[in-house]
């Protein structure tokens, strides 16, 4: 399998605080990588840099195609329904209304989303919102998946189901990076990569 995500020498600072310093990471297609590290180690920052949402101060990221990014907290429109979100996100990738809903429902059904619900996202539980959040990341069938603790609020069954899906995505040749603190599940990934807490942060009050 070819490399699908290559991070080379990425450095990111906020003010005088170094969040990431000279980080390298390579993920091949058909590989599931767990990204771990202490609070403040820069896991979310690295994921956001990989997704292109923030710029690194130094270094570069190369990707092998479309990116699906699932942030830690669902950034959703509070007064739109799941279908509204599916249509809107699908249209961005040139997918029509009915196909977006059809694809989205298939993904949501796999994660046990209550499809009979027509509620706006504000009225959904945290776990249900997160399922929609994950479905939006998967909607366009991207080959690089960046999942930042995507199972927040999931019930036990859906949580186990999520790790089963990681294996399915591996079989489909996707490159998957999952930020996780769930050490019990690390045996289900191909590699565990731990981001070190950078020493410079000790001087600025970050957890060590």
């Amino acid at each position, binding site marked *: 399998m*070819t*490399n*699908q*995500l*290559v991070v*080379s020498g990425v450095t990111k600072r906020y003010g005088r605080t170094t969040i990431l*310093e*000279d*980080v*390298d*990471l*390579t993920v091949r297609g058909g590989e599931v990588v767990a990204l*771990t590290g202490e609070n403040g180690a820069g896991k979310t920052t690295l994921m956001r840099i990989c*997704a*292109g*949402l923030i*710029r690194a101060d130094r270094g*570069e*990221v*190369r*990707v*092998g*195609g479309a*990116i699906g*990014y699932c*942030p830690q907290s669902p*950034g*959703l*429109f*509070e*007064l*739109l329904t799941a279908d*509204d979100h599916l*249509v*809107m*996100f699908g*249209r*961005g*990738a*040139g997918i029509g209304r009915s196909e977006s809903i059809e694809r989205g429902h298939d993904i949501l059904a796999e994660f046990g989303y209550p499809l009979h619900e027509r509620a*706006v996202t504000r009225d959904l539980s945290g776990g249900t919102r997160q399922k929609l959040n994950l479905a*939006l990341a998967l909607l*366009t069938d991207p080959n690089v998946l960046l999942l930042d603790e995507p199972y927040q609020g999931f019930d036990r069954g859906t949580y186990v189901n999520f790790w089963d899906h990681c294996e399915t995505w591996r079989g489909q040749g996707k490159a998957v990076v999952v930020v996780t603190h769930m050490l019990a599940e*690390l045996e289900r990934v191909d*590699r*565990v*990569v*731990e*981001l*070190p807490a950078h020493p410079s942060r000790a001087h600025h009050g970050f957890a060590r």
Partner: protein
Amino acid sequence: MNVLRRILIMGEMHGRDLTRRHAALALLIALPLSFYLASTRSGATAVSAGGVGMAFAVSGATMFSILSSIEVDQRLVLAGYRPIELLMGRLLFLGPLGLVIAAGFSALMATLSHPARPWLLVAGVGLVALQSVPFGLAVGAALARELEGTLVLIGVIGLQLAVELTSPVAKVLPFYGPSRLISSSLTQDGPILGPLVQTSLYGLALMILARLFVARRVDVQQHLPHADVADVAHPGEPELDEA
């Protein structure tokens, strides 16, 4: 064609979002109405207050629509939208909505205040509504937080209401053109073309400003494509600990 479809979808979704905010919609109408009704005894001042009061309502709704969705906007750009399409989608819904409110409201003012040229009052209030959208977009895109944005809206529109149209300060404010039209509607003469051109140019400048700021906030960096990825040797990942 895809660009148009993306803009239409954004307009539709912002429409759905706002029409589910019943209290916000009620305030959108109540705010300029209260400005007008509170000053009806002041004659001409009431028409100006009500007209420019529209700016608070429409630009406030626009600003909050952009500030409350910066996070999801960036994901939409990652999903394939361009920042300008997100802005145009909002313009597409909020512009006509503002015009509808302005039409109803100016009809009421024309009935109660008897301006010399009622059609010009409709045009002036309509221009306030239209100008409010790029103004709200620019403020929302430039300022990261709702408090700062709200204070700027209050400051700018409040200043527009407070100063005389002849004041040099009034001339650099965004609602100067529409205010002149509203003022002209009260008499049989008064400029029309100048305020129209000025409002159009000001609106265009605000839209460009909004585009620049929103691009800074939601733009997504495009990484190098697949062919380059395959050529890269494994760098060994020396900085990370692999378990």
